[in-house]
């Protein structure tokens, strides 16, 4: 077995894992905020529908959602995936599969984030809003300058749990034949008939979630310069 060759290939696989991880966060966090706001809107039909949507997404497996997403273009819009691919200007079928997976991940994680964010926002005392109002701040200013950082602090711990789960959930992408690190590891296992590539793979995951854990500890510490 060519050790460095295997490590190199695993690195390439892990870069796909990281790409899925990072892009999911980039889209799911803002979307999580939007869903959290929508589920708190005073207009009942909107908040109700948002809550039902979140309930459905959180109540069904991510794997199932990944598989279902691939049928959306053809079943809902009547567009075969081939045409859908050229419509979006996506070059290869593999990229299309990645896009599907990313879409499912973003929706799924946004719903988990939304629940955490909503909890965080509701947890800030009404007195904070009122103090801002009485001082003549607009709703937007109150949110940006008074509420947001208190919410961020309240949600850091539960969000970091979800984000570390996300690292491991990326392995599900394999179900839609996205070639991420585990897919490559299995290819090597089959090729060389040794188990070590799986061991190396787990080291990749461990190192990465270790880095994230340290990072979140640091952020939490940074944010705890005051007590509520």
């Amino acid at each position, binding site marked *: 077995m060519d050790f460095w060759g295997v490590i190199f290939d695993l690195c390439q696989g892990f870069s796909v894992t990281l790409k899925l991880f990072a892009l999911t966060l980039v889209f799911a966090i803002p979307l999580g905020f939007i869903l959290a706001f929508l589920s708190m809107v005073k207009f009942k039909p909107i908040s109700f529908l948002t809550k039902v949507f979140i309930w459905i997404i959180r109540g069904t497996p991510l794997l199932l959602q990944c598989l279902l997403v691939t049928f959306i273009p053809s079943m809902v819009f009547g567009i075969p995936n081939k045409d859908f691919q050229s419509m979006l200007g996506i070059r290869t079928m593999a990229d299309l599969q990645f896009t599907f997976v990313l879409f499912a991940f973003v929706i799924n994680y946004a719903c988990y984030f939304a629940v955490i964010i909503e909890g965080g926002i509701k947890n800030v005392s009404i007195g*904070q809003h009122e*103090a801002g109002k*009485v*001082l*003549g*701040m607009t709703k937007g200013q109150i949110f940006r300058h008074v509420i947001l950082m208190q919410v961020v*602090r309240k949600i850091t711990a539960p969000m970091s749990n979800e984000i570390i789960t996300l690292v491991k959930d990326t392995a599900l992408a394999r179900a839609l034949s996205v070639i991420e690190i585990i897919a490559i590891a299995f290819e090597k296992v089959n090729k060389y008939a040794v188990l070590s590539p799986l061991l190396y793979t787990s080291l990749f995951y461990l190192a990465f979630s270790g880095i994230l854990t340290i990072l979140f500890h640091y952020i939490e510490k940074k944010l705890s310069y005051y*007590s509520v």
Partner: protein
Amino acid sequence: MNMLEVQNLTKSFGSHQVLKGVSFSLKQGEVLVIIGSSGSGKTTLLRCLNFLEQADGGSICVGDEEIFNAAGKMNLSDHAMRDRRLHFGLVFQSFNLFPQHTVLKNVTLAPTLYQTTQLKKAKAGRNAIKEAKAGIEAQGRQLLDMVGLSEKVDEYPCRLSGGQQQRVAIARALALNPDILCFDEPTSALDPELTGEVLRVIRSLKDQGRTMVVVTHEMEFARGVADHVIYMADGVIEEEGTPDEVFGNPKSEKTKAFLAAGYNR
């Protein structure tokens, strides 16, 4: 001319009428003290003045401007609403300082945001905004100095005692220079030994000529600081007059009973 004129204010929560027609007026530089038992509607009255609640009936005038009239349509823009609300300041029982900001930032945040929006609207340059910010900061330090906290400008609220926090809250409310400053039981959340420092600040504001409405259970302080006293019971003004009239020679049986109980607490 009256600085504040409140006419026939009513407010219900569901079927429970909390304010049943409250009217009073206040001249510039006067201090109105409102006393009354729990649930009589004192907080609700202050909240209506500060637009934290919208009254169901009645009107509120500040100077010659009618800032609220339940009969008229109140479809004000966010901006107009804000300008009206800024006639009043409110100091809460529970301080409600912003925990993530320093003491100084607590005081300067709102005026900075306000002025910056105004200046940006007037297409002022960056330098004008910078200057305004510097002015607000200087004023913030001055206010904090006045309430005796010049040492604490860079602390976070959680590191201050309750009395110090409440003094920051007073400075914060003053930073927007409201016409009328309202206090809702500013010392009720404090340990007894800390109430003095807050009451002294309020008294010094009276000496500076601030117009104030103070809800309090501190009867001795009330008697000393008030120009006018209102005793509220069950959503109405049961009795009002000068401190000597209300405290020294109450006419209503309810007032007598309340004062007798209050002094013994």
